[in-house]
């Protein structure tokens, strides 16, 4: 798993690639939880993630919870069909904000503002 962070039009983006599973979830959790308090909104670009296990889902939910309590907004983008399916069948799609691609996610954030 690799994590790249950058900002696009002042929106913070965290692009993860590889697998988010039991081996790598701790690293992802640290990165996400460290980033959220300092930004009004964070886009998680999962375009290059080809596998998310339940450990990965847990990290995303923790991130969403942390965002909610700090008044920030966590947005997911670019899910591959198989990752999308995991979010769908676990019910996560209904409680998270998910966009087709990072540009779409950024546009949505810029339009409605953080949180």
């Amino acid at each position, binding site marked *: 798993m690799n994590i790249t962070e950058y900002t696009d039009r002042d929106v913070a983006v965290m692009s993860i690639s590889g*697998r988010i599973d039991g081996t790598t979830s701790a690293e992802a959790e640290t990165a996400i939880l460290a980033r959220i308090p300092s930004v009004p909104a964070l886009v998680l670009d999962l375009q290059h993630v080809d596998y998310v*296990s*339940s*450990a990965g889902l847990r990290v995303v*939910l*923790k991130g969403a919870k942390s965002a909610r309590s700090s008044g920030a907004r966590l947005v997911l983008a670019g899910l591959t069909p198989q990752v999308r*399916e995991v979010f769908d069948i*676990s019910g996560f799609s209904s409680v998270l904000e998910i966009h087709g691609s990072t540009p779409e996610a950024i546009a949505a954030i810029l339009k409605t503002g953080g949180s």
Partner: protein
Amino acid sequence: MRRAVDWLTSVPISAPKARPDDVLYGTEDRPPAGVTMIAVVQQAMLMLMLLVYAVITGERMGLDPAGVVRFTSTCIFGFGLSTLLQGLRSRLTPGMLMVAIPSPVAFGTYIGIISAWGPSAAVGAVISANVIILLITPQLPRLRGYFPPEVAGVAVFMIGVMIIPEGIQRSLSPDAAGIISAPSMIASVVTLAAIVLCSIWGGVRLRVMSLIVGCGIGTVIALLLGAFDFSSLDNIPELGFFATPLPSPAAAWPTFVPAAILAYTVIELVHLMDQVASALTMDKLSDKNWVRADMSITARSSMANAIGNVVCGALGTLTGATSTANIGLAHASGVMSRFVGIGTGLLMMLLSFVPVVALVIVLTPGPVVGGVLIYTAAFMIIAGMELVLSRMMNSKRSFTVGFSIVIGFTVVTLPALVQNLPEWSRTIAASGLTVAVLTAIVLNALFRIGTSRTVTLQFEEGTPRAVQAAEHLEHWGAEWGARREVVMRGGMAVGEALELLNDGGFIKGAVALTTRFDEINLRCTITYEGEKPRLEQTAAPDLEALLNAEDDAALDAGLSEMSTNLIRRLADRVSVSSKGGKASLLLEFNH
């Protein structure tokens, strides 16, 4: 009765469809009356242009001009009914805009059966073959491995080849001495050129109507140059304004000839593959959220076509297939509403009572028809090649396709070889298409025997097991030609299961993954030394509540069963067992 109707109309739920942005009216949308009318007329006009195979069939059956007109009218009625069925939504019909046309695949075999055993055998063969298809349709997913894209590609390619002689003869109209007619050739070339130019340089809408434009221009040229058999006008039968499209009296009662039924069943199998492809295309084009093949809708589309074909058979006509040109028109015009399909079907059934409609099609000059046929042949040949090469080639697939085409050509170019075969097999063997497709089906089935369908992975140290499992599944999935989405789902579930077994401390020793594929199921079994886990389905946690919970402990507790739930939902069936210190976990996935 009431209960039967209820059963018929309570359609099994499939995924909700969303209209894509470039479509004006989606499958379920009801466009305004004006839009509907224009769309219906366009679809019906295009369909009428494609009736040329019905006309050819009628002529080759040796019918007199009045008979050809009646045959064509009856076809219009039958295909109108098929189109109507496709537009209705029920347990047996899909509810889609799919227009039926006489099939270029069927006419050769149909005529062959008539000349060998008479019209009543054709009626019997068409009805029987389509009843067989109706019985096969529910088994479709199970049989997919026997009809892979390369087999369908051989069929499409050979259809293109079989059309050529018909197209060339009509284009050149050679006389008894073999001298070709220059006016005919010019009219045909102009027709062909107009179609090609429209489809290459025209805009999207002109492209879809290129057939109509080409026929219009070609007909004008043919009339100007005299490349039109004006004597045919003298033979125009006395037609009333209104006439019931009746079956030919000769075909009143079906007779059932096994060889004829077999030959026509092969043809209908080709149609079945084609129908599945068309339904998938239409579903994909009209659903923004399209992710996976909706097998329910493709099966219902195939059933609707088979039911329509049984009626066509009973009416004494050949059978139909979905027109891809009409799908293209629907997409290009942005009107994909199934109500347009219902309207088109009804309009066609109405027009079948007006013989002058069929007459206009029957009178289309031969060279114009020839140009259309040549155009169709060229594109069928390319479409077949593209289908063949849509999967990675390996030696087996190359030989299957190459040898099937060689055998198909042999029949076409060396017809003398067929003459000494037993009578019953001749109708099958005489058609290059049927022989090539049968060869492809048999070779494909033979080579499947040689492919191992069960493989075992012994995990190695170093790379995480879930990664090894995913790579293993992807490799073998491609080798077997399994659907990518099923393989990906398998990789997800196996990865999750390995993680659960590992984190839960169930694994005490060596682990292996055995994968078995049989077209119906993908079965992944994880065997290991240790205890079996409990994988009980529990209620899904209230995620919203977890998000608002005070502390992380609540979240972790709420998600503790997430792994089990994921596995249970990703896999279609899960079972665990243990025996003598060894445990195994079986995950099954429908394919």
